[in-house]
């Protein structure tokens, strides 16, 4: 049976260094992600949707090293056991409520206000989508909601199209970060328009965070290499065959991409550029018998 042969070492709870996630208040290290004045050492923002169980979610969050994690606001169901909030609380992971499921600015603003009341945070990941099929942001409603929420004292992190103009408008109304989609939510199609990401990053003075579309580790690395300040993902981990392993992969991918971005990649060339010296080659006669 394949099941009995399976390597299950990762299914036991993680020992340190993953046992506790450092809280944002702890030393964020030499290269922090700073959103609205709050510093995080982790540049991976996790979602919590799609996990097969709270237990797998908890181990995935720990393996990811995340310090900021989204939740959705839904009708209270008295029959539900266990709470995602207690998981986040237990590990000092900051909660970031979203407005997923909202189609109008009005719905999103009310949902954000309910989240603020329920969770005691004025941070909100603002989502205002146009339709169920694409879950693409509705730019008009989004900008309207962002402006209202900023005026109401919220720290607004908008999920937006990969549109440099809309990104600029969102920043102008006071959003604390810009969260462009790489591709539709849950699609795993990666970053479909890296050029737009470069344009957004180039102009933005707030953190640009890849939101949606990451399917595997290389997608997260690419986002960071393009200059994103952080990566937000959920499905890529929670719906992976082994969520905890993928969470760890994403942790490394984000860190590696960040380092590569800071290091500065070499320019792309059409032809080879020898890495060994051209001088000092031995004079070897290919006609000699030793060459067989």
């Amino acid at each position, binding site marked *: 049976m394949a099941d009995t042969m399976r390597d299950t070492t990762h299914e036991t709870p993680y020992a340190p260094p993953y046992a506790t996630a450092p809280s944002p208040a702890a030393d964020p290290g030499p290269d922090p992600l700073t959103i609205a004045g709050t510093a995080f050492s982790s540049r991976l923002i996790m*979602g919590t949707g*799609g996990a097969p169980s709270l237990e797998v979610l908890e181990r995935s969050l720990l393996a990811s090293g995340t310090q900021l994690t989204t939740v*959705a606001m*839904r009708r209270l169901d008295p029959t539900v056991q266990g709470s995602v909030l207690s998981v986040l609380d237990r590990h000092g992971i900051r909660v*970031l409520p979203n407005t997923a499921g909202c189609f109008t600015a009005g719905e999103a603003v009310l949902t954000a206000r309910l989240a603020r009341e329920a969770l005691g945070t004025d941070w909100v990941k603002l989502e205002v989508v146009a339709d169920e099929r694409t879950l693409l942001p509705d730019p008009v409603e989004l900008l309207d909601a962002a402006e209202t929420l900023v005026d109401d004292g919220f720290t607004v992190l908008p999920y937006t199209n990969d549109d440099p103009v809309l990104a600029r408008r969102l920043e102008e109304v006071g959003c604390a970060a810009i969260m462009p989609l790489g591709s539709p939510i849950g699609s795993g199609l990666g970053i479909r328009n890296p050029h737009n990401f470069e344009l957004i990053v180039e102009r933005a003075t707030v953190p640009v965070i890849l939101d949606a579309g990451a399917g595997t580790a290389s997608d997260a690395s690419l986002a960071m290499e393009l200059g994103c300040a952080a990566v937000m993902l959920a499905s890529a981990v929670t719906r992976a065959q082994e969520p905890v392993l993928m969470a760890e992969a994403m942790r490394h991918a984000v860190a590696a991409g960040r380092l590569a971005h800071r290091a500065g990649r070499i320019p792309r060339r059409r032809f080879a550029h020898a890495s060994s010296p051209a001088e000092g080659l031995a004079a070897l006669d290919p006609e000699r018998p030793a060459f067989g």
Partner: protein
Amino acid sequence: MSTPSTDPSPAPNPGTGSLTVSLNGEPRELPGGTTLDALVAELTRAPSGVAAAVNEQVVPRGQWPATALGDGDRVEVLTAVQGG
């Protein structure tokens, strides 16, 4: 909903008759004078992480005991779930 500060309409007569509200989309019959905190307490004993809106207005927790529900009120009681 009747709160002294935000709603000028008269409160239902406490303790008399019954009223029907929509609680998270389901009709719910309540004794007259039922307050929002009593209704939320029927759903959960530990309302941390919970927020309530009546007729699309957020009601801060501190106002729940003083918020008497009226016939036809739309009550939404939300909490955080896995998402995003």
